[in-house]
């Protein structure tokens, strides 16, 4: 593993977390994410990948170890978070849902609305600003959720299996759109998934995790230029890398 020349944005050292029930969710997790990087956490359910994401977000505190932000010095005040379900407020229209992060920060509505509409335009939902969430398909709801996470232009975007409940076709479209947004806005992305194919397609690095206790088994760099597109999905490199991630996962189960 090569040491990055600049300090990473996110540094994890010896992170451990045990839940009240006695389940060891994480043990001795060391990892780092470079500024502007795209890292996926892939692993079976119960490997603590969501817990790790929540620790990075500051939603839960680790029992052991240290989370540091070497490049910025402290946790950025803006962190975008996308949940597995779109987690929209059903009583509010799409635009109001996207406005929420700015509203909570005290940005006036007339000042925020251009940014809200800009965020909606970037996910291709300009025409749905006045719709209610229940009128949208699963994929569109997820797009609203992404627009909401990006409306504050956060330096970090954390995603917890955001496309897991979507059909294959919608999922591939959203994968492509996500990479485009990442390349345009240069945020640092940490993406949790249980899909090997998705993790290899999206990220610069895949951290393979194992369960009981949750830990990192392998750190696999994906050596392919962006934009990746269909050609990459069908390349030998892609298939070979997926096989390596899969092998690392199996090793963790056998051990």
């Amino acid at each position: 593993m090569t040491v990055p020349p600049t300090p990473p944005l996110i540094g994890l050292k010896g992170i451990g977390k045990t839940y009240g029930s006695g389940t060891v969710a994480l043990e001795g997790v060391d990892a780092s994410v470079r500024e502007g990087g795209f890292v996926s956490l892939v692993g079976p359910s119960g490997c603590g990948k969501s817990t790790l994401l929540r620790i990075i977000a500051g939603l839960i505190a680790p029992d052991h170890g240290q989370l540091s932000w070497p490049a910025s010095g402290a946790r950025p005040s803006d962190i975008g978070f996308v949940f597995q379900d779109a987690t929209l407020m059903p009583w509010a229209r799409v635009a109001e849902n996207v406005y929420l992060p700015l509203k909570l920060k005290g940005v006036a509505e007339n000042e925020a609305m251009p940014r809200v509409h800009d965020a909606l335009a970037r996910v291709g939902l300009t025409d749905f600003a006045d719709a209610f969430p229940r009128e949208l398909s699963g994929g569109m709801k997820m797009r609203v959720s992404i627009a909401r996470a990006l409306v504050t232009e956060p330096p970090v975007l954390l995603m917890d299996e955001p496309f897991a409940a979507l059909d294959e076709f919608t999922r591939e479209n959203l994968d492509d759109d996500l990479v485009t947004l990442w390349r345009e806005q240069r945020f640092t992305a940490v993406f949790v998934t249980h899909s090997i194919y998705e993790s290899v397609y999206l990220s610069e690095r895949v951290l393979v995790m194992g369960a009981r206790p949750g830990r990192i088994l392998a750190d696999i760099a994906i050596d392919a230029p962006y934009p990746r597109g269909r050609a990459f999905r069908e390349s030998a490199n892609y298939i070979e890398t997926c096989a390596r991630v899969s092998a690392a996962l199996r090793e963790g189960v056998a051990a």
Partner: protein
Amino acid sequence: MNDERYSRLTRILVPLLVGIAFLLLWEGLVRVSGVKPFVLPAPSAIAESLVVNFGSLMGSLWVTFRVTLAAFLLAVVGGVGLAIVFSQNRLIETALFPYAVALQVTPVVSIAPLIIIWVGYDRVEVAVLILAWIVAFFPILSNTALGLRSTDHNLRDLFRLYGASRWQVLSELQLPSALPYILAGMKISGGLALIGAVVAEFVAGSGAATGLAWRIVEAGNRLDIPRMFAALFLLSTLGICIFFCLTLIEQRLLRHWHESAIRREI
């Protein structure tokens, strides 16, 4: 005729036809069997009594309506308010909730005499108001408390992530997501406020109360059964109106987003 218009028409027409058929059957049976009016008056006799006593009955309806509405509104304010206090402070909830339950499970008839003595016979309307409020208060409290606790956990996390204040979490997240629960509580309480008002009036009794319940007692004492039925009819109508109004408010507020209020196209 399309399906929607058909169903709307059916929803109004069918119960109406059943009602008319029932009244005709009633009228016919009373006439044929020759039952005395002080046992079972015919619908026509009840209608006649309603017209003859219109002034006094309407006055009483107004008294009962006023007390019911005031008790209901105070129950909404008190119930939602206390539930918000509970949601902000677990200790206060732990300390007070058992007493709210105690107040609810004690039959209102049994505390009515006490409340009337405390408030005084010269202010029976206030006593009736308090008793109706006690009955109407609890469903709103318990429903709102449940609603405030039932917010989506991920949305709560999201609010925390963006550094939302307690007030923001309450006003932007907890109250909107509790709205269906609050409205369901209000629908129960609207009916209960009326029941509470009537029961309290019965207990308050002779001459002091002037609401519809008292008209029923009075008519019973005089064996003026048609008038008793007329008062009963007005009481039911009032109850139905309260229920319809609250259902309408519920539909209006929830139609865009809550499953309960959405008309599905099949």
